[in-house]
């Protein structure tokens, strides 16, 4: 009974995807990505092809991949087609999604055009998920690791993110890393992404190449936790605890200080002192110029050339 049911599901899914397939295709240089799109998205498709040419090889190299498997990329015009490609599995608000199991990326063109996130970042983020899955050959990795790696590879971290992260830490809104192995909490998704980025950055801060080792061990052993231990000498759980302490040490104290009255009193005094010093210097300079003018143009200070 089970085999026919699987086959029917597969055929239905295939049918759903093929009816949604746009009619034109562009193949990115390198030969490993095929982009499917409608005519009016040709410009975007070409831009996507350029971005893949620019980024994919370097990103693959960071993960230790020498040859990228073929990837299908769909540019869906809007939410309707985007959702039809992978019904029920993607959040409506997302600009793009990736399905590592069948090596596909789907871009919601409408959302990308309206989004503040540049296409470059959106694409790199999804590409990173695909490449990571290829590297670990489908072995399961915790969500925080996948998202953290994707954010690092897409260079998706700004001063605003840094500030938001600081606030999240201060307000104790930052999730515990070990709670982010599966789906991110819906109400705290942003902090979860930032936490993932922070953790992976910290993990690779000393030895960037450990990313290759960890993913290779994960591939060989099929067990992320074991691979993590063999690479870093600590378990992911110990790492989570360490990150928690690190964040508290690094940020919470700074923010606590920034929120205290003595700190702001000190800052006000510092600004006042700086202002008075600057004013004194300006007055000194002014007096100096007056003296010079007196010497040059006499007591009345009028330049004969201007009079």
């Amino acid at each position, binding site marked *: 009974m089970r085999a026919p049911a699987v086959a029917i599901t597969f055929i239905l899914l295939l049918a759903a995807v093929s009816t949604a397939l746009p009619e034109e295709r562009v193949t990115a240089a390198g030969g490993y990505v095929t982009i499917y799109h409608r005519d009016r998205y040709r410009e975007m498709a070409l831009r996507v092809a350029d971005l893949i040419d620019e980024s994919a090889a370097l990103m693959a190299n960071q993960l*230790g991949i020498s040859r990228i498997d073929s990837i299908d990329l769909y540019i869906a015009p809007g939410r309707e087609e985007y959702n039809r490609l992978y019904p029920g599995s993607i959040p409506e608000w997302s600009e793009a999604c990736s399905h590592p199991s069948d090596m596909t990326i789907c871009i919601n063109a409408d959302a990308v055009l309206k989004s503040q996130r540049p296409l470059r970042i959106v694409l790199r983020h999804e590409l990173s998920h695909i490449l990571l899955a290829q590297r670990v050959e489908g072995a399961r990795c915790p969500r925080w690791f996948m998202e953290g790696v994707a954010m690092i590879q897409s260079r998706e971290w700004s001063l605003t993110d840094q500030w938001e992260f600081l606030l999240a830490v201060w307000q104790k809104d930052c999730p515990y890393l070990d709670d982010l192995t599966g789906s991110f909490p819906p109400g705290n998704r942003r902090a979860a992404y930032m936490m993932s980025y922070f953790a992976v950055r910290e993990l690779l801060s000393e*030895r960037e*190449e*450990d990313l*290759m*080792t*960890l993913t*290779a*061990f994960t591939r*060989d*052993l099929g067990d992320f936790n074991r691979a993590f*231990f*063999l*690479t*870093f*000498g*600590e378990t992911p759980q110990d790492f989570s605890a360490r990150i928690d302490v690190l964040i508290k040490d690094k940020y919470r104290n700074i923010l606590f200080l920034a929120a205290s009255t003595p700190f702001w009193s000190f800052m006000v005094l510092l600004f006042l002192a700086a202002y008075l010093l600057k004013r004194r210097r300006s007055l000194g300079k002014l007096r100096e110029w007056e003296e010079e003018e007196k010497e040059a143009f006499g007591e009345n200070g009028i330049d004969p050339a201007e009079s």
Partner: protein
Amino acid sequence: MEPRAGDSVVVGMSGGVDSTYAAHSLVREGLTVAGLTLRFFSGMGQQQESLDELAVKRARHICERLDIEHIVIDAGELFRGRVVDYLVRSYGSGATPNPCVTCNRHIKFPLLAEAADRLGAGWIATGHYARVEIFGEKPVIAAASDRNKDQSYFLYRLTPEILERSIFPLGRVGKDEVRAALEDIDLPARERESQDICFMGEEGLEGFLEARLAPSPGDVLNTRGEKIGTHRGSCFYTVGQRKGLGVAAGTPLYVIRKDTDRNLVFLGEGEELLSRKAVCRDIVLTERLMEMPLRGKIRYRHGPARVENLIISKDEMTVIFTEPQRAVTPGQSLVLYRGDLVAGGGIITGDGKR
């Protein structure tokens, strides 16, 4: 396989903090523990023999406190033949050897295993800061969780047969935890710790080599081949050494290389010590771990550096680092790491420059 309560283990006991902790933690885990102290220095003179005496006395005291059996084995002859002779020969040929690597490979661990076999114990243990991990269904040495104390560098030549029955209780703890644990049970935790070369007495390395190699003075040259001083014997100098050269110059000078056949020591500036290459002999490699990225450590106190490429022939390995490394010293071991796992290593013969 993990040791379980009731299993028997023989622990190498030097009377120091680390081996004491190893024995104590295994007793606490419910294993049947016996302590083994090796007399390494018998026949090497009164001073060295007194070091043995002290170790035996302390280890016996600790075993009594832990209420475990204590065994003493005389390893003097073996030690002289495999370690001391090797050390003297290496210095005589211009190298700077790691006697601990040789001792672990040929003396300490094989004798522990022998003693364990005689006592019917399945396990052996020492107070090294290292771990044994199973990778590809076989045991490999891994760096200790406390990276500052990690001693996996000294253990890279241990065979899989030895590793599969080895326990390193300090592999996942820090020095502070060791001291605290021993203070809690009032075991002596502030006593002697391992030295660089354990059998050097008051004479020091120079006196030791002087008595055995009869070195003669020779010329100190700069890298252009001009004489700039006189040395006391080339065996007293190590590549990378700066102090005690007896040569005054405007810029700091270092030992760049030695020519033992002609009894010459060459000095040069710091930059001349840099090399991206290290050539090794006597290589041992764990095939299943030989995948990039690898890191290489060219001496014990060296932050492992990223390896760009490896060229392996039948009995030689050339390691090319991504960045130049300072003072690639003949005689030292180069140990390769993949993540925290030891992938292999070899004895450095040169930096491939000359």
